[in-house]
């Protein structure tokens, strides 16, 4: 718990998201501050995984909270707050992807290829890696590039499930798709990723 949270009256820190939203609608700025603190990391992460650009992710995450605040009266307590805000965040992020591909016609794969020179070289395991952190970073780049090579519907479920670790039920609501579809997409997306990442995984499972 951060120092700021300890300074909150206990009622706010202990309040559920839905209770906070009620107080926000009633005009409590402290409740809004609490809600932002509670979700800023998750939302920034989610957006970052979608658009793969940290600075822009922070910007969009702030816009998510802006929209939550401006449209606070539209929130219906019958639904969970978390799925409401994740839906706003995922949709804003996906619109950003769309805007970018319109503007530049590029995908995040370009970034990877720029960053690592060529993917074949990376996978050729010629980096015994004195610089573990740099290696970790490159693994992350490869994994994200692989995720972004999935068709959007598979990319979305894998980001929400395996990166953000939302429940199946939350994913159903965020993406507005039935549970059976969520399951089958996760299954296919993982299988596809496993194939794409096989060289990395083989090393991990044999070492």
């Amino acid at each position, binding site marked *: 718990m951060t120092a700021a949270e300890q300074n909150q009256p206990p009622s706010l820190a202990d309040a559920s998201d839905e209770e906070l939203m009620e107080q926000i609608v009633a005009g409590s700025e402290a409740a809004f501050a609490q809600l*932002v603190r509670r979700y*800023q*990391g998750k*939302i*920034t*992460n989610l957006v970052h995984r979608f658009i793969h650009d940290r600075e822009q*992710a*922070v910007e969009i*995450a*702030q*816009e998510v909270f*802006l*929209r939550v*605040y*401006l*449209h606070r009266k*539209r929130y219906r307590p019958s639904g969970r707050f978390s799925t409401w805000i994740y839906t*706003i965040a*995922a*949709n*804003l992020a*996906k619109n950003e*992807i*769309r805007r970018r*591909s*319109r503007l530049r016609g590029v*995908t995040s*794969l370009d970034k990877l290829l720029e960053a690592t020179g*060529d*993917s*074949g070289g990376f*996978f050729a395991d010629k980096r015994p890696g004195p610089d573990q952190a740099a290696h970790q970073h490159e693994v*992350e780049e490869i*994994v*994200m590039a692989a995720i*972004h*090579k*999935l*068709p*959007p*519907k*598979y990319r979305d479920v*894998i980001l929400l*499930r*395996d990166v953000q*670790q939302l429940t199946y039920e939350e994913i159903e609501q965020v993406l507005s798709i039935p549970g059976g579809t969520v*399951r089958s997409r*996760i*299954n*296919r997306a993982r*299988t*596809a990723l*496993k*194939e*794409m*990442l*096989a*060289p990395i*995984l083989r090393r*991990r499972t044999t070492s």
Partner: protein
Amino acid sequence: MKCSDAKRLCCGHLDGELSCAEDEALQEHLRECPACAAQAEQLGACVELLHGLPDVEPGPGFYECVREKIRAAEAGELQVMPETLGGRARVRAWLDGLRLRPAMAAGLWLLLGIVLGGGVAHLAGNSSGEAPATEPAPLAVEAPGGDDVGGDAMAQAGVRSPFWDLELDEPGSRSDTNRFESEFLLEPYVQDRQGGLVPAGMDYQRGVAGDRDAQDDVYPVF
């Protein structure tokens, strides 16, 4: 248990979704089937890899920035545009807006179906498993370069895409996967349909079938 059933259950196992009986049957199969056991191990490692991706920190001053945006928006200095609907969603919204009587609406949809269906049939007739070299996919709205456009048309035209074919139990999925994998791993660049060089995977990304809704609708937020 068949290997295909084991593959299906592996995913549920990772998410703790299986019943005790299913889990037991799966474990029994994995003990007897080295191929499935290896696949299961790699699937587990893959999910572990994804779970282990480091978090990004929103940074200090996040809340203050949000407050400032709110102040600016309320003062009218910052326009928060509602994301508009595009493509089919706009047509749908327009139809909804007309509040058509059911019979009229059915007729209109039927007409739309005939028009679209005719277009697809026409395309399917032209295509024999290969992408038409020059014809743009007729339902693609922002091609080229969109990360999720054109898929419907490609799928309906019978154009094969490695992902679309990546059915777990379908014969032939291995070869597609291998083709995809080898291109990704060994050839950073491949020739696209116009004959230019693009990073491997790019062409697939354009050609894969995405969500119907994702094709031409802006995702609604407010």
